[in-house]
């Protein structure tokens, strides 16, 4: 099963589609070259980085999903006035200062300005304060809410939680993803790695089939990226709203005709750590724009 040269095939397909069906010419396969992601003409984000040693050569370099998107989508992320996610990040910032729960506290009561949270997102997920669990940012937020504020935990994919994680991610924009995968995190990372390479579902597809072996190629109209999560939570044009990391994982697993894991599950937290580690060195883009 020899593959024809990628460009030739893409061109042939595009010409066939345009000539015979009159449909829009499909996007060609590869990530864009020679473009920089500069937000508001001032913040340059790293969208290509050397592959980390722990990938053992699995990827030639690591690339942001931004490089795989259409011109118009990429442009939306380059100006905060055009980025639809910013509305939600603003709502998250408002929540930061809103008191809730029996203790009459807000996040700001203990943490001060949300800008104090710069760096937090870049190290997520990480081992819990008690040292016996791996926590995503959502777990840290809910831990504060339940133990310090006397407030109800937010649902993993609730609007409040996504708005808050958007506001928090934004504080780390431009910092390199830098998750710990050694010490107590090591078994979680190993578990995440195992999940990444497991061919789930009736379609028997692993994350690696699409996002390692075929990034740059097309599955129908979907241009496959490396599946990096440095841009999350993302604003998804398809659903016109924010999407969490775990919700995106769930969608991918569902599309392999598999029984999914739940957002917040140990499996998805382990996978989050492993996938984050595959993007080590890329900038936190939170909050990005994707199709």
């Amino acid at each position, binding site marked *: *099963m*020899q*593959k*024809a040269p*990628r460009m030739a*095939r*893409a061109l*042939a*397909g595009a010409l*066939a*589609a345009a*000539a*015979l*069906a009159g*449909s829009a010419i*499909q996007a060609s*396969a590869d990530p864009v070259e020679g473009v920089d992601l500069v937000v508001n003409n001032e913040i340059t984000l790293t969208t290509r980085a050397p592959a980390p040693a722990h990938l053992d050569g699995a990827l030639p370099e690591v690339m942001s999903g931004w490089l795989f998107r259409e011109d118009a989508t990429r442009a939306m992320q380059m100006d905060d006035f055009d980025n639809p996610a910013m509305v939600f990040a603003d709502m998250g910032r408002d929540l930061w200062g809103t008191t809730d729960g029996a203790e009459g506290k807000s996040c700001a009561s203990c943490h001060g300005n949300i800008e104090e949270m710069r760096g937090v997102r870049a190290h997520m997920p990480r081992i819990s304060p008690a040292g016996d669990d791996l926590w995503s940012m959502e777990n840290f937020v809910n831990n504060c809410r339940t133990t310090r504020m006397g407030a109800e935990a937010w649902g993993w994919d609730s609007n409040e939680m996504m708005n808050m994680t958007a506001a928090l991610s934004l504080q780390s924009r431009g910092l390199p993803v830098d998750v710990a995968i050694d010490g107590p995190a090591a078994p979680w990372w190993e578990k995440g790695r195992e999940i990444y390479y*497991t*061919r*789930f*579902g*009736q*379609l*028997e*597809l692993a994350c690696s*089939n699409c996002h390692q*072996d*075929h990034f740059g*190629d*097309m*599955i*129908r*109209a979907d241009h496959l990226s490396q599946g990096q999560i440095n841009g999350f939570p993302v604003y998804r044009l398809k659903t016109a709203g924010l999407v969490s990391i775990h919700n995106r994982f*769930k969608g991918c*697993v*569902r*599309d*392999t*005709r*598999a*029984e*999914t894991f739940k957002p917040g599950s140990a499996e998805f937290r382990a996978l989050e750590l492993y996938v984050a580690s595959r993007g080590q060195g890329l900038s936190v883009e939170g909050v990005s724009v994707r199709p």
Partner: protein
Amino acid sequence: MRRIATLCAPAAVSAAAITTALTILAPPVLAETAPAAIAWQDGAIAAPLTDSPGDAGRGAELMATRPLGNCVACHEIAALPAASFQGNIGPALEGAATRYSEAQLRGIIVNAKNTFDGSMMPAFYKTDGFIRPGDAYTGKAAPADLPPILDAQQVEDVLAFLMTMK
């Protein structure tokens, strides 16, 4: 009595004729090979999975339809230009029938991993051996009697269309 007999005789003939007609019109019970009963030879399957020959027209429709074959998700099929956004994960299917025999192509549709070790291509006529199989695209657990993605006749239909690609 004679009169009655005369009346009855033609009636008896009619009943026999009707029985014959029904036998012809009734849908035949087709033999179908279950996934577990397939005879493999080096990744190929010589015997058709059903008694009813494949229909290339139906096959073409299956190959372009998302919840069914959706072959165009990963393969370019120049003969199906109406199917937009054809993928490029696998090889283009033009000329498939010149590269492989009918038995080989049947085997590749049923379970390509028996021909190409570790292939990304899903097995379209397989019902067990999955990890966390789901109930189609719902994200929920699969039922105990998980059907294959394509049924036996659909496999033969897709094969019939592939065999036109010379």
